[in-house]
């Protein structure tokens, strides 16, 4: 029965890592929906969340929860500043220009973080102990439960926000057709700003909840941003649920690939499956296809 234990461990590990990828991918979709651009600085929000928490904890003798709140708040402000200083002034720039600006911004943020906090890797204490829990024949860290729990919570909040509040509905309207939304009296610029604020905060949260497991450093954003981007693409750019699903698929593929085949090939396996999915469904698993783009 050894293989059942092994498979269940692979599945659990994949699920937990996948949720993180999904959460980061989620941030990509929110900005994409509001502006049509892919924000390659999303990974840096993830880095900022983790690094700010580590350094707030060192600076002030405050409880972890407060530091986490402050780190998310600070990242949210950085997200707003980023939009105001780099995205907003470009009135009618093409999406490709804006995408390149986000890449530039990500390099800037990473560089500043390196100068400010150095190049070391930093640990963050786990939220509730580091005794592994046994789940059937597999083991899981309490931190994994936090990750899964917060991911579900964010999904629910997201659903409530985008479907049951006036701001959420306005943001969805912008994603369908910004011009029509603007004619209907929605301030599209405000919605863009709001989208940056929300995805910065979401990214920061993702960065904080994984830091106790994976540790954090100034350059974690590159890898995690890429994984989140993949998650968003598999799920269909623009679909929040899709990004989460995409993330979990990616996480499972990686962990099964590493476990059953070879760790050396796990990225290759994950990306081959990605390509197959995109060949079969170019719009992603939950994408709306291209018909809106007339």
């Amino acid at each position, binding site marked *: 029965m050894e293989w059942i234990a092994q498979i269940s461990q*692979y599945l659990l590990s994949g699920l937990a890592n996948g949720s993180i990828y999904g959460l980061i991918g989620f941030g990509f979709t929110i900005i994409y929906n509001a502006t049509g651009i892919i924000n390659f600085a999303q990974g840096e929000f993830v880095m900022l969340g983790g690094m700010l928490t580590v350094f707030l904890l060192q600076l002030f003798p405050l409880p972890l929860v407060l530091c986490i709140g402050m780190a998310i708040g600070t990242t949210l402000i950085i997200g707003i500043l980023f939009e105001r200083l780099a995205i907003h002034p470009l009135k009618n720039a093409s999406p490709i220009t804006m995408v390149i600006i986000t890449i530039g911004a990500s390099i800037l943020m990473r560089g500043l973080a390196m100068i400010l906090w150095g190049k070391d890797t930093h640990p963050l204490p786990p939220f509730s102990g580091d005794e592994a829990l046994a789940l059937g024949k597999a*083991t899981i860290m309490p931190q994994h439960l936090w990750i899964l729990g917060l991911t579900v919570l964010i999904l629910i909040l997201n659903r409530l926000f985008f479907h049951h509040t006036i701001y959420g509905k306005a943001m969805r309207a912008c994603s369908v057709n910004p011009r029509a939304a603007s004619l209907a009296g929605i301030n599209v610029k405000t919605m863009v700003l709001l989208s940056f604020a929300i995805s910065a905060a979401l990214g920061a949260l993702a960065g904080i909840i994984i830091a106790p*497991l994976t540790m954090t450093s100034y350059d974690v954003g590159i890898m995690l941003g890429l994984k989140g981007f993949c998650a968003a693409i598999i799920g269909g750019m623009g679909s929040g649920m899709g990004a989460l699903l995409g993330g979990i698929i990616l996480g499972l593929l990686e962990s099964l690939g590493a476990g059953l085949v070879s760790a050396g090939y796990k990225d290759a396996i994950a990306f081959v499956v990605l390509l197959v999915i995109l060949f079969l469904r170019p719009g992603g698993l939950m994408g709306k296809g291209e018909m809106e783009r007339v």
Partner: protein
Amino acid sequence: MTVAIILAISAPAIGAEDVKLGALFSVTGPPSFLGEPERNTAQMMVEKINKAGGVKGKKLELIVYDTQGDPTKANQAADRLIKEDKVVAIMGPSTTGETMAVIPLVEKAKIPLISCAAGIKITEPVKKWVFKTAQNDSLAVEKIFKHLKEKGVNKIAVLTVSDGFGASGREQLKLHAPKYGIEIVSDDTFGPKDTDMTPQLTKLRGSPAQAIICWGTNPGPAVVARNVKQLNLNIPLYMSHGVSSKKFIELAGPAAEGIILPSGKVLVADLLPQKDPQKKHLLSFISEYKARYKTEGDHFGGHAWDAVMLIKNAMEKAGFTPVAIRDGLEQTKNFSGIGGVFSFSPEDHAGLTAEAFVLVQVKNGRWSLVK
């Protein structure tokens, strides 16, 4: 970005009589954890020598270029050191790849090079103008295998990082295992940026391995240590000298407990017996580095300490021309440095034995010597 930057020119008054030493360190870029302490140490030691009156009355001038871990940049910077700065000897580069890119240049220009990288191919086969201070990976591997053999372990699992350091470690592990009657029953890798190694470790649970050897540099091995604890694998975990620093204990937390690894002596300098020939230098290096840079001196900085002091030693004995320095280096015998006791010869330009390493174990969140 393409032009290497002059990071430091020490010695305020540069006279015509000064001796110019070149240094290539990856102060930035991925191997900055090597290059930064190396640059710091080299500067500190050159200043110290100058303050004490220089070498036979001549002041040293240190010219450092940042290679950013890039062999192409290392090659360009070496060219500049040789042709424009006209240095008499070069320290560094920090990594094996960069060193290999620089070797043809120094061999042609006949300038002695003391590499701070560990790769065995730097000095095997012996190149006339090339020496190195970092301990060969094979010495660390043999140190672990000797210990395993004493413990009666003959089946091991190997988990290495998929970069240059891990690949070299994996090669040496495979090469030396048969000599000690050890069989590698599982051989897997992880990416340098991977954040979860439970799949690799879960796979290993089904194997007959009696010990795991993990070869990598931070942060990967810390994740491995945490995952081993999470999965409750009840077999001993060994690491490489790549993580022999306080940082590793900080990163791995309680999961570091009990891990054994080979390390340069700098990590446990205060625990060494009084008769250890390196103890005096180790303690002075640690306290001077701490006083100046506010962080712990590590064995990476030690590679540069050894390079500077070996060159100084060679100049005192043989003279100040590149040829004299090279000959002086080759004649060095029983030189106690930070990385070990160096004895070079025409057949051996690495100069160290397995005595350069000690086995250390994490106990109660601190390093301790394994007897």
